[in-house]
């Protein structure tokens, strides 16, 4: 029963989704399929509570054991402070009454958004900017010529890089680069896309028919 009910629901929902693709918009099935997608969003909202509970439990557990205690305290303080500000000031971007403006928020931002724009976004951008260093170190390893394949990779990369610079047209690198990007690159990409599409279809069919059921957990 524990596995049969989810399998039956999966089968019905899967078949309905496939059929909805083949019927025109506005029919009962296509409306139903968009409704089901909305349910997914609502369920995800409830899952946030589960996720937050897990963060608090794991962090408290580690803080009690003394593992990275200062960082765990920062995490919990930030989590609850943001949550409190969100609950207290609401989710409108700009605060509604002037008394809420303590003079520290540019453009009268809601404090919840002040945290988002002044702390979370810069931190995210910092993490993203690390990528440039990682690209350099990964490219160094990838371009070391240790085999014929690595040699071809290096030559191709050099041509593509040359094709991006202002003198590329003078040395003819722009045309070679365009050919590399449009012919072999697109051909390889399409082959991967097609393979992946077949994989997706096969995986979906296995799930709809209940052949693949390990995502439901074991038999125990």
């Amino acid at each position: 029963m524990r596995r049969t009910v989810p399998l039956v629901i999966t089968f019905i929902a899967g078949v309905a989704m496939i059929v909805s693709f083949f019927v025109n918009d506005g029919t009962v099935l296509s409306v139903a399929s968009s409704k089901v997608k909305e349910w997914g969003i609502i369920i995800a909202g409830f899952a946030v509570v589960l996720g937050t509970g897990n963060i608090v439990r794991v962090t408290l557990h580690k803080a009690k054991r003394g593992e990275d205690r200062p960082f765990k305290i920062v995490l919990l303080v930030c989590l609850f402070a943001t949550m409190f500000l969100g609950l207290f000031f609401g989710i409108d971007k700009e605060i509604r009454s002037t008394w809420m403006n303590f003079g520290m928020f540019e453009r009268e931002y809601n404090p919840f958004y002040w945290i988002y724009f002044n702390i979370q976004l810069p931190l995210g951008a910092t993490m993203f900017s690390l990528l440039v260093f990682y690209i350099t170190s990964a490219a160094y390893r990838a371009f070391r010529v240790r085999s014929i394949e690595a040699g071809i990779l290096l030559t191709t990369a050099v041509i593509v890089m040359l094709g991006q610079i202002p003198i590329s047209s003078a040395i003819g690198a722009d045309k070679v680069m365009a050919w590399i990007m449009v012919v072999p690159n697109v051909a390889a990409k399409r082959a991967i896309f097609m393979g992946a599409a077949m994989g997706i279809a096969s995986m979906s069919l296995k799930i709809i028919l209940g052949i693949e059921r390990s995502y439901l957990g074991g038999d125990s």
Partner: protein
Amino acid sequence: MDLISFVTIGETYPAAKLVMGILMLLFFSFVLYYTRQAKRGKELYVRPIAGLSAMNEAVGRATEMGRPVLYVPGIADMDDIQTIASVVILSEVAKLAASYDTRTIVPTGKPIIFPVAEETVRNAFADAGRPEAFNKDDVRFLSDDQFAFTAGVTGIMLREKPATNIYMGAFWAESLILAETGFLAGAIQIAGTANVSQLPFFVAACDYTLIGEELYAASAYLSREPQLLGSLKGSDTAKLLWGALILIGVILANIPALDDKLESAFGFHFADLFIFPK
């Protein structure tokens, strides 16, 4: 150009939908046929996939070193088929790790994946006969913000020093940050994604990479269940058919006289059968 269409039950549909429906039914028939064959005991050959063959060795290495395995199921939500494929692989990896008495740390980036991953790992430990070894703190929700999640995962890599990092699922800009940090931490790394733009990063920074469809074949490969292997064979057969259709399209595109003859005989070009309305 007007799209060719057909009319049924009083509605007009583009012909491409009909063609797609027929091809889909053919594909499903292949999968079901080979699944049936496999059920009856027919031996099916699956080509070796280096990344999946190395999974045992990678988990074994973590066991020998007394360190955990880190499994990252991507940053897409549960409605992405790559995440579903990843959860299926997680089940096999966690079972393997549990049988070796090794921890599997699973950080999740979407709240809805967290309970699914927790249940999957819990059941995998139970299936391996070691339900008491499951530690619920090992499956964690970090953040649904892309780079906050990345920071959390790289923190786990540097603090808990997993010997094996497995990245399976949908990844975007964080792929290289994760894989390079794992490389610098000295872990053996296996990655798999169908996001073409991230494949070069994984290939450069990981020891093994599953490319595109190999991600979806992983569960069949690892579990060796005949029914799952049958579905692999079925999709490979369908791929042959798609290849033949592409070849016909290429020939007709390069010999316009032949294409025109076809057009005068049937009233449409071969390529028109595959054009969808925008």
